[in-house]
């Protein structure tokens, strides 16, 4: 796995030209993993910028993460309400213009609701919330968020959700496969009945990535799963932006 880069050198000048690379982390009402994601961003050597759902202003960040949780209580449908929040108007616009956007768990659900990513998430096939360390294969190492991994690399990061079953119609699934847009696949066991074992996908341009497992919970050796397999998501974005 990627070693933790020293913050002194890793950040470098972001493309915004204002010193450190700035990664925005959105808080919706009911978001839970925003502080964890900010910590992961900092550990990777970037600057974490809190973004508020009511605020359209992205504060000149270079990339955005939509963290996990139960935004608006997941009432109606996971991600269905957040998708209409003011901040998402700007995120959708910027994502289409190429800004790297990562949706984790509830963030992935929001991204599918906005149609930045295809498909939808249904309740797990066993109908229970599940929390476990999950093995994944990185299928696409060319996205903005996976550049630090090798294609085919196996990683373990925590999974925790109740609405995690990825579904899409056959044509969409075939398209995702053909275009190499399945970014992560569940290994060993499919924990929720996701079609074709899909754990995460990317858009065509590779700047928008969504996945159900939580890389921000696998960034420190003593905490959580005790692995650091998730840190690569956040160092990937630094590498991508600094080299851009």
């Amino acid at each position, binding site marked *: 796995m990627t070693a933790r880069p020293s913050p002194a050198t890793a950040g470098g000048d972001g493309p915004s030209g204002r010193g450190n690379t700035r990664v925005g982390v959105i808080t919706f*009402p*009911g978001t*839970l*993993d925003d*502080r*964890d994601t900010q*910590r*992961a961003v900092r550990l990777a050597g970037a600057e974490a910028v809190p973004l508020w759902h009511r605020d359209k202003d992205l504060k000149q960040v270079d990339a955005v993460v939509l963290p996990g*949780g*139960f935004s*608006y*209580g*997941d*009432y109606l449908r996971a991600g269905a309400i957040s998708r209409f929040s003011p901040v998402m108007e700007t995120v959708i616009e910027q994502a289409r213009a190429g800004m790297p956007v990562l949706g984790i768990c509830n963030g992935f659900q929001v991204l599918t609701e906005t149609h930045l990513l295809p498909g939808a998430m249904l309740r797990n096939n*066993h109908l*229970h*919330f*599940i*929390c*476990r360390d999950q093995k994944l294969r990185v299928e696409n190492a060319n996205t903005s968020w996976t550049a630090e991994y090798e294609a085919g690399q196996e990683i373990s990061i*925590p999974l*925790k959700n*109740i609405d995690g079953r990825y579904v899409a119609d056959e044509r969409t699934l075939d398209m995702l496969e053909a275009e190499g847009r399945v970014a992560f696949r569940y290994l060993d066991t499919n924990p929720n009945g996701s079609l074709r074992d899909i754990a995460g996908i990317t858009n065509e341009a590779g700047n928008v990535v969504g996945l159900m497992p*939580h890389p*921000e*919970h696998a*960034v*420190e050796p*003593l*905490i*959580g*799963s005790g692995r650091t397999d998730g840190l690569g998501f956040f160092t990937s974005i630094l590498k991508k932006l600094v080299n851009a």
Partner: protein
Amino acid sequence: MTLDTVKHATETPDIDQPWAELGLKQDEYERVREILGRRPTGAELAMYSVMWSEHCSYKSSKVHLKQFGEKAPQSDALLVGIGENAGVVDVGQGYAVTFKVESHNHPSYVEPYQGAATGVGGIVRDIIAMGARPIAVVDPLRFGAADHPDTKRVLPGVVSGIGGYGNCLGLPNIGGETVFDACYQGNPLVNAGAIGVMRHEDIHLAKASGSGNKVILYGARTGGDGIGGASILASETFDEAKPSKRPAVQVGDPFQEKLLIECTLEAFAEKLVVGIQDLGAAGLSCATSELASNGSGGMRVELDDVPLRDSTLSPEEILMSESQERMCAVVEPSKVERFLAICEKWDVTATVIGEVTDGDRLEIFWHGEMIVDVDPRTVAHDGPVYERPYARPAWQDALQADDANKLARPADADELRAQVLRLVSSPNQASKSWITGQYDHFVQGNTVLAQPEDSGMIRIDEDTNLGVAIATDGNGRFTKLDPYTGAQLALAEAYRNVAATGAKPLAVSDCLNFGSPEDPAVMWQFAEAIRGLADGCLEMGTPVTGGNVSLYNQTGEAAIHPTPVVAVLGVIDDISRRTPIAFADEGHLIYLLGDTKEELGGSAWSQVVHDHLGGLPPAVDLGREKLLAEILISASRDGMVDAAHDLSDGGLIQALVESCLRGGKGARIVVPDGVDPFVLLFSESAGRAIVAVPRSEELRFNDMCGARGLPTTRIGVIDGTEIDIQGQFSIPLSELKVAHEETIPAILA
């Protein structure tokens, strides 16, 4: 109909009032009249009835609970003790930790999902009300027999409720227990614990001070749910045309509670709050009377200003409603605007409903007329106190005489092996990962250890690696055999579990689950258990910071086993020194610490193999427990052990199986000369643990134990892919894994 104002009450002294339907006894009602010098208004009667209930007033338990104060050990760690929403403990570096365990037993039987969910919600609000950010929850649970049909109704609902609520709040669930026993059939125990952390200067208390300060009710709107007893609705005094008999179990909204947490913490951070109280049992009646009675002045409340979900609620119902996700804050007038702005930011409804006054009365108005005029202390603190009769039950001697040490034992090694497999696959000893896997234990990114580790551990400072640990334990079987010893065994086990992970035990919270206090036998169990726990805490130096009593856990004449659940909180200076249970490194030596005696009374073996409960529980030696804990903590700090696991129910073999499966490595065990392998494997003598010692540390470890007088036995080595009890039997890990992990899903999934 006429509004029952204070004036009206004075003018109509002889009206019949529904005190009995509200649960008051005749003498209690007379006492209220005596306090007020007139009959109470309907609203006052509502307040006194809920606040003087067993649940709120501790009227049967008070006389015993005071021992926790009288016998409290000297402790520099205690910042806030019994009586507040939760106790607060100093953990160093300027941090304070608050923690508490509460019961939500009865509602969880009636409606498992909501009962358990709102149990989590309530304990978390107690933590916020102290000024702390909640950082973790734990859930000690007890159900009827695993294969009883009703357990399949209650358990999945309870687990989903805890997960559905706690997961949505973003609190890692790091510990607890699940126990099955037929005695809990119809009376499941759903206890919920929470921990919070704050800086010393941020401690907040439930008191209303400063004349002119505003009382703000914020959070969910008040509805007709959870109205105590609901009997007031049926009484003729009130309008019969409107909806009545609403559910007595509250309905939770974790999303609302998450917003409540965030906006409360933001208000604390800006120092906007003078006093704060959550609304739990007895709702506004409790919050207003407690805030007022703990403060320096009185309070005036305009009940018309309370935001309602149901506009037809009567003032009595508003005062008694237990709608969830509500809090009450006292704020200086100049800060009200900012407080309301923060609530608006988080989409939380907030309303000024009153103010602190110069006087010493709690005055509540409805449509401009006074409907409550009381001394709040008489409502909140001067409830009845009962010295209930108690007596050692006649059957206690026979129970203790029915010695488990005399039960038939395995005849040969094959039978011993078969009994090991039966034990580790029995519902109580089997892996609970089907349950705990439904709880988020990663959220917040600070979880160092979570179940099935000996204690849950959370980092509280990223720079210094300071952490806290918590373990909850309780053994109703031991406590039934001997309540005094059983309570001390619960304390000893939780203390040992915290120490086994490397943390230093600091303080205790408890949840005391018993049958009916009106039964002298139950009352004796209760009195003995408290005496045992209070004596134990004094000897261990761990003060009881608060807790909860749940009585009436019984159906007809059959009470549950007396079940004091003890939570021990500990601190660890550097979480990188934490000790897990996993045997992960081949070649490391396995040591058994402590003495193993022939102690099978109340043991898991006697239950699984013989369905037997009798004899005496294992003896307690609290001095030994302290020594063992010191050794475990030192060994962890100095890197002398890299795994440790306490020995409790199921004895040595259970601990070995758990440590081996967790680490994915086997163990070769040599039964020491002259030791009966059966006793070695199954006895549940207290004060013991197993540790894995790297060979390079063996000498140093032995020197330390020898110098401090702790008996140790080298019993084997981590090796291979099976547990091999040499000269007896061996079982492959793959077989143990199936036995241990498939039981619970097979019953419940």
